[in-house]
C-alpha cells in the first residue's frame, strides 16, 4: 500500500490543488542521480562507498569509461539537460531527496514514482564484472538512500545488461523486493534486444514475472541511427524513437515472445506515435516474408499488442487539433491505450507536467487511467483512490 505524503507538508495546499485537477498520479519515469563524482570525470564520490574493495580500487584509479553518446554532444542543452530549478545547493539535479519531495512528489501529489537511476546510462560501457559491481552498488544506494526513506518511491533494477548471466544474477537478487518493480536496460545496446545474447535476462525476468524496460541513453558502440553518427544532440535526441522501433522489430521477429510468452516490456521515453504504422508495416512484411521467420506463430502486431507498454513523456504533439484524437483512435484499435503510462522525466529539461502534458483530446477516463490506473495494474501497485 502506498502511503500518502505527510499532511504537514508545507506544500499541502498546492498538492491538493494539483491533485484535484488530475486525480491520482503515478510517475513512471523519474531520475535520481548519485553525484558529480560518479560521472567518470573525477574520482571518488558516493559510489565508492558502495563498492567492494577490489572494485573501489579500480573505480578510484580508472573511473568509468564515458559513453560516446554523451561525449559527442558537448552542445546539448544547458544545465546537463536538466530543468533550471532542479539544482540542489550541492550536487547535480536528482541528487537531493528533499528537493525531489518538495518540488515534485509533494507539489503534484504523486502517489508513486518509479526511479530510473541516471548513472545506469554508463553501465553498458563498462566491462562485465565491473559493470556488475557498479550496478549492484547503484541498486544498494537507491534502496538505502531513496526507497527506504521515501515510501512513495519505487525503482528499476539496474543490470549489467551486456552480460546476460551477470544481469540475471542481479535480477535474482532483487526482483522479489516489493519496491523494485522492473528491470532497467538502456536503449543503446550493443545488439538489438531480440538477440539471443540477452535471453538469460529474459529468462530471469520471466521467472520473477517482473517487467523489463528500456530507457533513453546508454552506449552500445553503434551509431544511434542505421545511417551512421549524426552531428548534433537534437538529432541524437530525436533519433530515439527510431532506436525503439529497431528494438520492437527485433524482439518480435527474433521470436522472443514465443520463447518467453509472459514477458512485459516498458518502452520509456521513446514516444508512441510510431506504433500504428510500425504494426501495419510489420504485419505487411510478415505476410510477404513470413517464411523466413516460421517461429512467429501470430501476426507481429499481436505480439506488439500483448507485450509492450509505453511511457508518455515526451508527450506526442501532433500538428493540428484533432490529430491526437486520431492517434488515440488508432492506438485503441491496437489495444495500446491501456498500455500508456504517464511519466514526467523529472528533473530533465523536457519534463511533462502532470496537469498540462496530456492533451485535452484525451478523454477524462483515459486520462485517469494513463495517469495512474494503467501503471497500478502493470506494476501491481495499490494506490488509494486510484480509478
Amino acid at each position: 500500500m502506498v502511503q500518502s505524503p505527510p499532511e504537514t507538508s508545507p506544500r499541502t495546499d498546492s498538492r491538493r490543488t494539483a491533485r484535484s485537477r488530475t486525480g491520482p498520479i503515478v510517475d513512471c519515469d523519474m531520475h535520481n542521480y548519485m553525484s558529480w563524482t560518479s560521472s567518470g570525470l573525477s574520482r571518488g564520490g558516493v559510489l565508492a562507498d558502495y563498492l567492494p574493495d577490489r572494485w573501489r580500487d579500480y573505480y578510484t584509479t580508472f573511473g568509468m569509461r564515458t559513453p560516446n553518446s554523451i561525449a559527442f554532444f558537448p552542445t546539448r542543452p544547458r544545465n546537463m539537460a536538466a530543468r533550471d530549478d532542479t539544482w540542489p545547493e550541492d550536487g547535480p539535479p536528482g541528487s537531493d531527496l528533499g528537493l525531489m519531495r518538495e518540488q515534485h512528489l509533494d507539489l503534484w501529489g504523486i502517489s508513486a514514482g518509479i526511479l530510473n537511476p541516471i548513472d545506469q546510462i554508463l553501465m553498458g560501457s563498462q566491462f562485465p564484472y565491473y559493470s556488475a559491481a557498479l550496478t549492484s552498488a547503484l541498486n544498494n544506494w537507491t534502496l538505502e538512500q531513496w526507497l527506504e526513506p521515501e515510501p512513495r518511491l519505487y525503482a528499476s533494477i539496474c543490470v549489467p545488461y551486456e552480460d546476460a548471466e551477470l544481469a540475471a544474477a542481479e535480477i535474482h537478487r532483487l526482483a522479489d523486493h516489493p519496491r523494485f518493480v522492473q528491470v532497467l536496460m538502456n536503449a543503446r545496446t550493443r545488439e538489438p534486444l531480440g538477440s539471443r545474447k540477452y535471453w538469460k535476462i529474459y529468462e530471469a525476468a520471466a521467472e520473477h514475472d517482473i517487467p523489463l524496460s528500456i530507457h533513453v541513453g546508454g552506449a552500445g558502440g553503434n551509431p544511434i541511427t542505421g545511417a551512421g553518427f549524426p552531428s548534433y544532440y537534437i538529432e541524437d535526441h530525436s533519433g530515439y524513437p527510431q532506436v525503439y522501433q529497431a528494438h520492437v522489430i527485433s524482439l518480435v521477429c527474433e521470436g522472443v515472445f514465443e520463447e518467453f510468452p509472459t514477458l512485459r516490456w516498458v518502452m520509456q521515453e521513446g514516444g508512441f506515435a510510431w506504433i500504428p504504422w510500425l504494426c501495419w508495416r510489420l504485419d505487411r512484411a510478415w505476410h510477404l516474408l513470413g517464411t523466413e521467420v516460421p517461429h512467429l506463430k501470430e501476426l507481429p502486431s499481436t505480439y506488439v499488442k500483448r507485450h509492450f507498454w509505453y511511457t508518455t513523456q515526451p508527450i506526442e504533439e501532433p500538428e493540428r487539433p484533432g490529430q491526437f484524437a486520431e492517434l488515440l483512435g488508432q492506438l485503441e484499435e491496437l489495444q495500446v491505450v491501456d498500455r500508456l503510462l504517464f511519466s514526467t522525466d523529472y528533473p530533465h529539461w523536457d519534463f511533462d507536467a502532470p496537469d498540462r502534458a496530456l492533451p485535452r483530446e484525451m478523454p477524462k477516463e483515459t486520462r485517469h487511467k494513463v495517469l495512474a490506473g494503467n501503471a497500478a495494474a502493470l506494476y501491481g501497485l495499490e494506490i488509494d483512490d486510484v480509478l
Partner: protein
Amino acid sequence: MSSDHHHGGPLIDCDVHLPTPTVDQLGPYLSEHWREYIATAGFKGSMAVTSTHPPGARSSGHERLDGGFAEAMRNVRRHCLGESESARAVVSAHYGVETMGPPDFSTALSRAVNDWMLTACRDTDERLLASINVPPQYPDLAAEEIDRLAGDDRVVQVFVPARTSKPYGNRIYYPLLAAAERNGLPLGIHFGGMSWNPPTGVGWPSYYIEEYVGMAHVMQAQLSSLVFEGAFQRFPRLRVTVLEGGWTWLPSLMWRLDKEWKGIRREVPWVEEPPSTYLRRHVKLSIQPIDAPPDGPEVMTTIDQIGSDDVLMYASDFPHEHLSDPLALLDRLAPETASKVAYGNAAACYGVPSAPEPQESVR
C-alpha cells in the same frame, strides 16, 4: 497497369528497377584496365545488391525479370508505361558502388552502369528516365559524375542508398548535395544499400525481415539529418526523394522533429522554420510500399496528417513485390489529389512537362 483500376490519367512511375547488369554487359562501358582487373579478380558484381534484395525473397520479385534482358525491358514497358504518351518511368539499377573502398573502381563502375542504363533507356522507350548511380562515400567523385551526365535529358535523379556511414546531412556530402542542387536533380534516397555500420542504431539484426521493416527508421534518420544539419538552408533548391522506404511514418516523424525543434533549436539556429516545413517543401516520397490496412480509414487519415498534396508520388516499384496496391490508393484519393500523386508531383520533381488534362475516369 491493371484495368481493374479507375484512375484514368497518365502516370509517372518514379521507382522502377532494371535488371542488374552483368559484368559482361558493362564491359563495353569500361576501360581496358578495368575489364582486365575485373577478369583477373573474378569480380561478378557487388554483394550489396543481393543483400538489399535477396535473390529468392518474394519481395525481390526477381521472377518478373526472368527470361533475359529483352524480356525484362518488355515487362518494364508493359507494367510501368502502358500506352499513354505522357507516361514516364524513372528507372534505376542499384549496383552497390557505395560498398567499394577503391574510389577509382567505385567511380568506374558508377559510370559504366550509368552509360549502360542510358543506352538501355534510349534503345527501349523514349519515355524512360534515369536515376544515376554515384559513389556517395566519395562526394567529390559523385559530384563529377553528376556534372558529367546532368546534361542528358533522360537523367532526372541521383540515386543513393539509404544505408550510409554518415547520414546525408553531414557536411562531408556538401559536394554531392551542391552538384545535385546546381544541376536541378533530386537526391533519391532508396531502400537498402550496404555500409560498415549496422542498419539499426543498436547493432546487427538477424533476419532480412528486420532490415526490410527497419529501413523505415533509416529513412527517418536521413531526413532528420538533412533538416537539422542545415542542408536545406545551405542548399535552398535541394530536393530529396524517399524511394521504397514507406511513408506512413511521416506524420509521426514531423511531430517529433517539430517538438524537438521547439525545445532545443538553439543548438541548430540555421533551422529557421519548423522541420515539417522543410520536409514538405523539399522532400517527396514514393507511395510504394503502403504501410496501412488496405481498406481501412488509416491511410486516408495519414495522408491528411501529412498536410500537403505535394509530397507523395506514384510508384510501382517494379519488379518488387510488397503486397500493397498503389493504383488502388490512387482510386481512393480525391481527383485533384490523385492527379498530383499520379503525375503532377513527379512532373514537378523531375522536370517533366505537365501532362494533358487527365482523361475522364472510366468509372
